[in-house]
């Protein structure tokens, strides 16, 4: 056997060993990890910055034991979900469930575990896993979060869950009504506001939003009554006066509209929209001088905070 033959044999043997070892290690390492739980897992967003993973059919005691005794087990199963942290908004992908999370702190819970503000247990200083307990407030908070993101359907789902757990919270009905209003589902919105009124009939905001809803529906008389009730409960309700003025303008009662605009101006003299709309009302009445005066005032105040910013998302005080 010549030198070249020996060289070929040695080099080939080394290459085959290296290649096979590397390939087999990679293939073994790629096998699916801990898929027992994967099919039973459901990821959903709880409060901002956390994701919660519900394991279906897992008894609560088992989840507790697993979290305390086998943190590595959960750590591995969570890794199988591929948390991509390469962007500013990390994403978790698992079986076509795509969630945006701003911080990847996965939280695991059994299906019937209650949910509330998370308690995070640092495990080995790495991924933090904790138990969450639910109550109506947590679902309400979730609803607010989805509402703020414009996801009204999910917001309504969470509000409904909150109501199931605590049917006496007026805020939930009120916010649910707002969500239906945003969706354009006026009838449902009215139902929600009416439920809220049953719980607390002294909240001006509910009547105000009901007035907005009736106005969108075209029920001007009912809108008027709602706004009036809001004003009775809160005589300084700027938005209600403004909207009343608009309502009367739509109805063609410009004189009454102007009265309401003036009340709005008394409460807040720097809002351009009020002057503008009052100017239009004067114009319809044929009082050009007053109209011009109003438009000039509107122009002077055009850089102030607009009514849109001022009146959106009115909260129950």
């Amino acid at each position, binding site marked *: *056997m*010549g*030198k*070249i*033959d020996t060289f*070929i*044999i040695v*080099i*080939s043997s080394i*290459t*085959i060993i*290296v*290649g*096979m070892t*590397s*390939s*087999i290690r*990679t*293939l073994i*390492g*790629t096998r*699916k*990890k801990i898929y027992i739980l994967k099919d039973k897992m459901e990821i959903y967003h709880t409060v901002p910055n956390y994701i919660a993973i519900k394991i279906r059919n897992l008894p609560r005691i088992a989840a507790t034991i697993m979290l305390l005794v086998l943190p590595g087990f959960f750590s591995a199963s969570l*890794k*199988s*979900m*591929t948390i*991509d942290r*390469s962007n500013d908004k990390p994403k978790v*992908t*698992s*079986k076509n469930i795509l969630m945006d999370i701003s911080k990847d702190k996965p939280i695991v819970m059994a299906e019937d575990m209650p949910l509330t503000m998370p308690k995070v247990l640092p495990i080995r200083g790495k991924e933090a896993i904790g138990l969450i307990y639910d109550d109506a407030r947590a679902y309400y908070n979730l609803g607010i979060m989805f509402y703020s993101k414009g996801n009204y359907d999910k917001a309504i789902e969470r509000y409904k869950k909150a109501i199931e757990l605590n049917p006496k919270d007026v805020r939930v009905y009120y916010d649910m009504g707002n969500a239906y209003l945003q969706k354009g589902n006026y009838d449902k919105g009215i139902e929600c506001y009416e439920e809220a009124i049953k719980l607390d009939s002294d909240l001006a905001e509910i009547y105000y939003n009901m007035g907005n809803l009736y106005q969108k529906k075209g029920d001007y008389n009912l809108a008027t009554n709602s706004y009036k009730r809001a004003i009775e409960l809160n005589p300084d309700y700027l938005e209600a006066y403004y909207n009343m003025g608009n309502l009367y303008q739509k109805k063609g009662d410009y004189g009454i509209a102007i009265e309401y605009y003036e009340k709005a101006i008394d409460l807040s003299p720097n809002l351009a929209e009020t002057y503008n709309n009052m100017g239009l009302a004067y114009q319809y009445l044929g009082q050009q001088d007053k109209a011009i005066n109003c438009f000039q005032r509107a122009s002077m105040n055009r850089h102030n905070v607009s009514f849109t910013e001022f009146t959106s998302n009115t909260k129950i005080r």
Partner: protein
Amino acid sequence: MVGLIPFIVRLFVFLFYKGSTVYFLFNEIDFILFGLVLNLSNINELEDKKKLGEKWEKEKKGVSLYFIIIFSTFLMLAYLYEIGAIEQFNKILFKIFAITISLVAFLNSYSIFNRINNIANGQN
């Protein structure tokens, strides 16, 4: 696929040229080129994909680079034999090892692409 072009062309020639034998089909240079193309593709894929795991990525690039060097060496030996620069040479042994290493390179490539696909599907 690019690496299979020499095999396909050789098969084409074998089918349509009466003077060719079965041994003509198994040429070591084709296998070496196939292995080279596979390992170049590996490096290209590993460069392209991020977040595979730094350690694993480096290992695989290292292995692919090593294969490229080995295949280049074998190619050089084959060309030297062709021009008569080397005479004392067991051609059959060379052929067997060239084919074997190509198959190992194929397995290595498969493991890399399998891993990349699994990561892409969220399974790792």
